C-alpha cells in the first residue's frame, strides 16, 4: 500500500510542477535588468567577469547578507557542537603514510590555487566563495593527515573577524566618501589587468579569507566532535 501512495504522490506532484514550468520556454525570458547590466557593467565597475560585477557592485548587499548567513551557520554549529577553545585530541586513527606525505605536498599547491581563484575573481569565473572553500579544504587536509595539530581556533577566529570587518569597512568607506554604502570606489584600471575593477578584488579577497577561515573552523569542529 505504501508503495502505491508514494508513486501516486510522485506522479501527481510532477504533473502539477510540469504544468507550471513547461511554458517557461528557455531563452525567451525578458532580460529587462540583465540587458541594462550587460550594457553598463563594464564601464560602471571595470570588471571583466560580469557575474562578479553583479555579485559585488550591483547586488553587494546580497553578498553581505550571504556572508552573514554563512557566519551565523558557522557560529551556530560552533555552539551546537560545543567546541570551545580547548583543543581536545580525537582518537581517530592517524591517516596512512601516503595521505600524510600527499597532504604535505598538496597543501602549498592548494593554497596557491585558492589565492589564484580569489584574486582573479573579477576576471575569470571564481571569486570569494569558491576560493574560500578551497582554502578551507587546504587547511582541512592538514588535520586529515595527522589529527594531532588541528587548526588553532584562536588564529582562524581572528582572521575571520578581521576579514569580515574589512569587507564592511570597504563598504563604509564608500559610504563616507560618496554617501552610498558598498559603492565600488578606487580607479577602475584598464580592463582585464590584475589590478582593475577598483575595490571589487579587495572585497573578494576579504570575502575569500573570511569564508576560508569560517569553513576551516566548521570542518575542524565537525571532525573533533567527541566520538
Amino acid at each position, binding site marked *: 500500500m505504501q508503495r502505491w501512495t508514494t508513486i501516486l504522490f510522485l506522479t501527481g506532484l510532477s504533473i502539477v510542477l510540469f504544468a507550471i514550468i513547461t511554458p517557461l520556454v528557455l531563452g525567451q525570458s525578458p532580460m529587462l535588468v540583465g540587458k541594462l547590466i550587460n550594457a553598463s557593467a563594464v564601464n560602471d565597475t571595470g570588471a571583466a567577469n560580469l557575474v562578479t560585477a553583479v555579485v559585488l557592485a550591483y547586488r553587494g548587499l546580497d553578498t553581505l547578507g550571504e556572508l552573514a548567513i554563512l557566519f551565523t551557520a558557522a557560529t551556530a554549529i560552533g555552539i551546537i557542537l560545543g567546541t570551545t577553545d580547548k583543543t581536545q585530541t580525537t582518537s581517530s586513527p592517524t591517516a596512512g603514510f601516503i595521505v600524510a606525505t600527499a597532504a604535505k605536498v598538496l597543501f602549498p599547491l592548494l593554497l596557491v590555487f585558492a589565492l589564484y581563484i580569489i584574486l582573479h575573481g573579477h576576471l575569470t569565473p571564481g571569486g570569494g566563495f*569558491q576560493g574560500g*572553500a578551497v582554502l578551507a579544504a587546504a587547511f582541512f587536509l592538514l588535520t586529515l593527515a595527522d589529527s594531532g595539530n588541528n587548526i588553532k581556533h584562536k588564529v582562524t577566529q581572528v582572521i575571520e573577524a578581521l576579514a569580515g570587518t574589512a569587507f564592511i569597512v570597504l563598504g563604509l568607506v564608500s559610504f563616507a566618501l560618496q554617501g552610498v554604502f558598498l559603492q565600488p570606489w578606487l580607479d577602475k584600471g584598464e580592463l582585464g589587468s590584475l589590478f582593475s575593477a577598483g575595490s571589487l578584488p579587495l572585497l573578494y579577497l576579504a570575502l575569500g579569507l573570511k569564508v576560508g577561515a569560517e569553513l576551516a573552523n566548521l*570542518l575542524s569542529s565537525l571532525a573533533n566532535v567527541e*566520538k
Partner: protein
Amino acid sequence: MNIIILVITVSMLVIAAFYVVWADSFFTVLAASSMVSVGLVLLFVLLRAPDVALTEAVVGVALTGVIYALTLAKIDLWKINDNDDNNDVSQSKQ
C-alpha cells in the same frame, strides 16, 4: 552535439537522485548525492554559467560531500554495506 551530453547528464542525474532517496546504505547515498552535484556542474556549464558551475563544484561536491562524510562518521554509519551488522542499515531503511 551538446544535446547528447545534456541527455546523458540528465539521465545520470535522475538515476543518482533515485539512489539518494531509495538506496539502503548511507554510503551509497553519499556517493549518489555527490554524483548529483557533479551532474549539476555539467548542467551549469551547458547553461553558460561558469561561475555557478565552479561554486557548485567546490561547495556542492567538495564541501557538502566532506561535511556529509564527517557526519556519517560521527553517527557511525560510515561502513561499507557488509552484511554482519545489518541492524544499522535496516534501522536506517524503514
